[in-house]
């Protein structure tokens, strides 16, 4: 075993206590088994605890040949004290969709990272990648060759690229998946490899897909293009199961409230009265739903999963523009397509994406997210660029100001007017 040097880290050591998994213990054990990087990282963290400031330098452009993303440069600002982490770059590896793994996959990934990196990772990064933390510049090409040749796995996105698309577990385990999120995201990732690896956008662009409006992958909050499953027919009802919930034979919300006494299940109070559109009622022992009035919020289905299921005419709602606050403030995605069938090869959807990207690449300012362009240039411009039709579903309410941008061709006679004629009718 290699000789390693452990720094004095009393504040880090405090974080070995308690019940929640201790990252300090994990990293220290790895370090003591021969990885100096792990011990140096804890040493530098201890210094940050002392100063209450980070000790990583700003940026540094590194990468692999032919790609403009996937690797993020990172350098310590205290390399004399912590020489093994002087370079400590990140490699983002594209995760399998839904984040399912085989032990063989994980072990080979660990073999690569133990040999060429620090042995530290994030599973997973905020965008969804397998994040390999900490390696040196001269290892980047070998790492890329190892992942592509020995695992057939590619890097993820970074910088002004398409970022690694992400999805929920979809149809692999969830009865509510209205769309094949994994299949969709796999296809989009493969289709847009060039956009993912070579920066051509004004800024980052993210796709995320959730199978239903519960939105487990946070598509509506975290992606420029949110693809969320929905249905346009009727909620399927098993009336016998409804009766079983009412009789207390089945646990409401699948047992999610099991450790507190909330009293006997009351379908009126817990389901019907909480329905945001009040589109449900009981007729005797039969649950009725006016599906035309339903906004598919999932509450009744969540509470009674054995009794109620989404419809079978399924597709996706497309919303655009979510982002965190920098710069213009946080945005939640805006509804642009209420329903679209999502079947391979997804041509209609990809055409729509193409029109969005053409617009954004033509008009977007440096580091302007798509959602900010949408705010700056309006939904009306989105309609012109994409050929979509204005529908009331796009807004919470109609505008309250009267400042309509009429165009000349919408007004009889256009805008060419004769001042002399005007003055014949009106003395100046």
């Amino acid at each position: 075993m290699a000789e390693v040097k452990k720094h004095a880290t009393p504040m880090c050591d405090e974080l070995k206590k308690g019940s929640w998994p201790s990252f300090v213990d994990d990293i220290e054990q790895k370090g003591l088994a021969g990885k100096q990087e792990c011990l140096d990282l804890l040493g530098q963290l201890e210094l940050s605890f002392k100063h209450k400031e980070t000790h990583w330098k700003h940026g540094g452009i590194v990468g692999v040949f032919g790609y403009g993303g996937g690797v993020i440069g990172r350098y310590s600002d205290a390399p004399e004290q912590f020489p093994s982490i002087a370079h400590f770059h990140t490699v983002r590896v594209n995760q399998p969709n839904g984040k399912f793994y085989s032990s063989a996959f994980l072990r080979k990934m660990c073999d690569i990272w133990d040999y060429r990196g620090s042995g530290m990772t994030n599973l997973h990064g905020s965008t969804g990648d397998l994040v390999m933390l900490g390696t040196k510049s001269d290892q980047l090409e070998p790492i890329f060759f190892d992942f592509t040749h020995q695992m057939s796995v590619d890097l993820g996105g970074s910088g002004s690229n398409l970022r690694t698309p992400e999805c929920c577990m979809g149809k692999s385990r969830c009865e509510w998946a209205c769309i094949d999120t994994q299949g969709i995201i796999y296809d989009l990732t493969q289709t847009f490899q060039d956009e993912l690896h070579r920066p051509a956008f004004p800024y980052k662009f993210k796709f995320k897909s959730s199978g239903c409006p519960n939105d487990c992958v946070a598509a509506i909050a975290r992606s420029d293009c949110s693809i969320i499953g929905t249905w346009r027919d009727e909620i399927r009802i098993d009336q016998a199961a409804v009766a079983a919930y009412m009789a207390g034979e089945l646990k409401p919300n699948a047992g999610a409230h099991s450790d507190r006494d909330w009293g006997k299940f009351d379908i009126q109070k817990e389901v019907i009265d909480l329905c945001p559109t009040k589109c449900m009622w009981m007729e005797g022992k039969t649950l009725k739903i006016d599906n035309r009035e339903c906004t598919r919020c999932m509450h009744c289905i969540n509470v009674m999963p054995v009794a109620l299921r989404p419809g079978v005419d399924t597709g996706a709602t497309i919303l655009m523009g979510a982002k965190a606050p920098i710069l213009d403030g946080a945005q939640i995605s805006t509804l642009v397509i209420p329903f679209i069938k999502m079947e391979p090869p997804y041509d209609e959807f990809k055409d729509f994406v193409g029109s969005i990207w053409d617009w954004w690449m033509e008009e977007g300012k440096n580091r302007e997210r798509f959602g900010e362009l949408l705010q700056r240039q309006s939904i009306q411009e989105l309609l012109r660029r994409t050929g979509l039709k204005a529908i009331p579903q796009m807004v919470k309410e109609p505008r309250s100001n009267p400042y309509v941008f009429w165009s000349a061709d919408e007004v009889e006679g256009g805008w060419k007017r004769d001042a002399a004629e005007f003055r014949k009718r009106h003395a100046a």
Partner: protein
Amino acid sequence: MNEYFEKQKELYGDNPGFDISELLSKPYDKTLAEKLYDPAKPMQNRITDIGPAHFFQFLPPVLKKNYGQWKYHEIVQPGVIKYTAESGDTVFAVRCASARLITTNLIREVAEIADKYCDGCVRWTTRNNIEFHVETEDKLRALLDDLKGRKFPGGSYKFPVGGTGASVTNIVHTQGWVHCHTPAIDASSVVKSVMDDLFEYFGSHKLPAQVRIALACCLNMCGAVHCSDIAILGVHRKPPLVEDERITGVCELPLAVAACPLGAIKPATVEINGEKKKTVRVNEDRCMFCGNCYTMCPAMPLADGQGDGVAILVGGKISNRISTPQFSKLVIPYIPSEPPRWQSTVKTIRNILEVYASNANKYERLGDWAARIGWERFFEKCNIPFTDKSIDDYRLAYDTYHTTTQFKWSVHTDNL
């Protein structure tokens, strides 16, 4: 499943990552990359644009068989979800926490558990939990016992089971001082401290609804805390330093000027050792400490141990359930950084969580509860001082102003 798999194979079977089982069966060759890669001919032997490995090959057999055919689920105990398929097949998913920042040692241990109980299959969730799948009650009991017994030398659980239903599940978070150049606070130590304190809520279903906590260590919000029930956000409170001597060497001045959303950065010229140098000046009264200038220009650091700290935002959500998705709202503008245990932050979060838990209705998310009782009552009940810092003064601020005579009497109006 076969029909779905056949269709996927037809569409993507030629992709190199469609089936990597043969590659994975070979031992890792440490020498291969150096044999293949020649810096003088960088394109030689280079494989590019292959994307991720296809997901289907990694699914547990019962998930492959019932793909798209699941019927319903039930949480049989905190952390254990039983899924039933149309075919009648069932599977238990066992959810356990991880620190997100994990080593290959821990990943190898996960692989070992997956081999022992789960045909070598395992999954991670969006919120950094790990899920193991087993098909029988016996295997479930054995797996749960096994997980419970695995601890780090300091005594913390490696794989605590929970995170389902009306619980506090794992915290989505960022890098902090462990690996980022722009953070105002650390991430992993805050998460560890908060979850040590809230541990009882991870493995139980005691709350009115699920509570999603997220942490972002600066306003860039890689942790996307803008739609969380409780958000822990690192904030700066001192304007950027301007390093006149090195700024032209490390950044494009026009980009630094353009980076400021408030136009508070202007070009300037200074004299250093008799030499005129171009630089910038910051109108400090206009700075809102967003840090965007530092992102564009390394010679404008904001980090300051005294100035930086934690802001708490609450009431956001992502799900469309009952109410629409909502932003988190800033209720505490600043708590000082207190590494390693962040005790004031921990105490603040427990207080908000417990006041919510004892007052909200069943199914009511934190933000829906606060909206129902009124935010004046939220501040009163949680005993949080309301300050002008919670009143928006950025773009679209007017959307948050009260434009009605309807308000509640609260401690804020009692002594007017």
